[in-house]
């Protein structure tokens, strides 16, 4: 169980936007994207699309889904599930908690198995 990283306050990431926490800061081997979804909640996935090299944080957030900016694959922000072609592999999820005003990221703590 990795420790939580305080990545800032809830006002630091606008709704519909995302921020990348680089691998060297999150302690895993992958950059992690933290999304402020349109349901008001925060979610985190590996930033790199499972299809080709692209940053999901640069993608389009719609509801609780993110669309890859390059080839339009869609992922569920809650479960990481690949929702459409050309992606077939789920994106790895990471737990996010909001504590007061702070957004806490738990790198490598899967939401799916929790």
């Amino acid at each position, binding site marked *: 169980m990795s420790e939580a990283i305080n990545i800032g306050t809830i006002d630091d990431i606008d709704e519909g936007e995302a921020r990348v926490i680089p691998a060297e800061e999150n302690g895993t081997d992958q950059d992690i994207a933290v999304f402020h979804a349109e349901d008001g909640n925060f979610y985190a996935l590996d930033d790199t699309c499972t299809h080709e090299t692209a940053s999901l944080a*640069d993608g389009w957030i719609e509801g609780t889904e993110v669309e890859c*900016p*390059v*080839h339009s694959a869609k992922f569920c922000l809650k479960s990481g599930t690949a929702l459409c072609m050309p992606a077939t592999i789920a994106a790895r999820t990471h737990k996010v908690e909001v504590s007061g005003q702070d957004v806490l990221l738990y790198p490598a703590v899967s939401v799916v198995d929790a």
Partner: protein
Amino acid sequence: MSTTEHCPSEANAAIGKMRGPEHGPKNIDVSALVDTEGGLIDRSIYTDPGIYDQEMRRIFARSWLFLAHTSQFKKPGDFFTTFMGQDPVIVTMDKTKTIRAYLNSCRHRGVRLCRADAGATKMFTCTYHGWSFDLAGALKTVPNEKAYPEDFDKKDWSLIEVPRLSEYKGLLFANWDKDAEDLEDTLGDMRYYMDAMLDRDPEGTEVMGGVMKWELEGNWKLAAEQFATDWYHVNMSHASALMVMSPTGKGPKTEIVATPGRQYVSPNGHGAGFPTHPKSRFDAQAVHEHYDYEALRERLGDAAVEGPMTTGHATVFPSFSYLPVNGSIRIWHPKGPNKIEVWAWILVDKSMPDDVKDAQRLYNLRTFGPSGIFEADDGENWSEIQAISDGFITNSVPLNFQMGIGSEKEDGVYPGQTSELYSDAAGRSFYKHWSKLMNTPAWHEHPAPAPAGE
């Protein structure tokens, strides 16, 4: 807001061992088709497919062409797709907020890369195989890249960038010739006439709403030339529209029909005509009342307010035209020798209150929108010329451009050479410049180097 005065990326990247055809296309000597001294034009310049193809190579591939208005690009990723001649281009704002333009064709199999008219994006991804390019035109993603040979380098397959992109007071122009004369020098004295529309407001101008697009039968030059030089048609072609616009019950007015005015004749093929009689103004009332004419006289000078700011017409060679009072800017996209696609924007001063902008918009639509009462008259004329010009005998009878021969002079009031309002002078100059370019090899015609080993 900045523009690429010079292309930051290597446009026209190496194409490996490929060379073009051994012999370039055959060029037509147009000197026997355009007699600007005598004021005669051979009709084949409007109909001949060979001449049209040569125009693509020697006019559109080397002239400053209007792309868009800077107000269409507010944040990185905003894009607009248009044409330079018949070449499709994407105009977009990159991450450094520089406006750049790229050939809208995937470097892989050539599909049109961006199919939307306008919008916002992070990447331009081809819908065929998924090659994906960033806002700087760099190829970022190639699906199944591992199957390409070792010497495959994505850097060699960036989008083809238009090497020159330049702004004049909100108007974006681009040129495929990297060594072209600067836009401002090409415009020359034309800038004074353009300023009467672009520089009325210290805040500048912006476009309203989307782009209106419509198709016409007709050669692109018929429209471009008319906007450069032709006030002559107004009293005949627009008689009914002028009656509609006249104050109710006042009847026809001699001062409108016989208005004095001047016509600017640019050596680079531009032209602008304008009445200089204050009664010749046909503004939207709300716009007229909005203007502080004393302040405008201080800002632009008396002559600009009394002349080019009035109900004028103008063309920037080759295919950009505008009407200051109607707030209409437009490009005549050539679509073959017989067809024009008109793309028209509504231009307003930025600091106009919203109700004044709306009055300008409605006035634009009523007069020179796609179904405007003046626009319809003009389109009908051009289409009627084109509809019959495939006749062999018809096409062998030259057209007359003799009005005002020898009338061009420096009048001490308006910059450059001007003629009378009723004159073909700017038309003759338009065709003189056209034929000079048509008979001069362009930048892309230098012989290709022979491949190594030969």
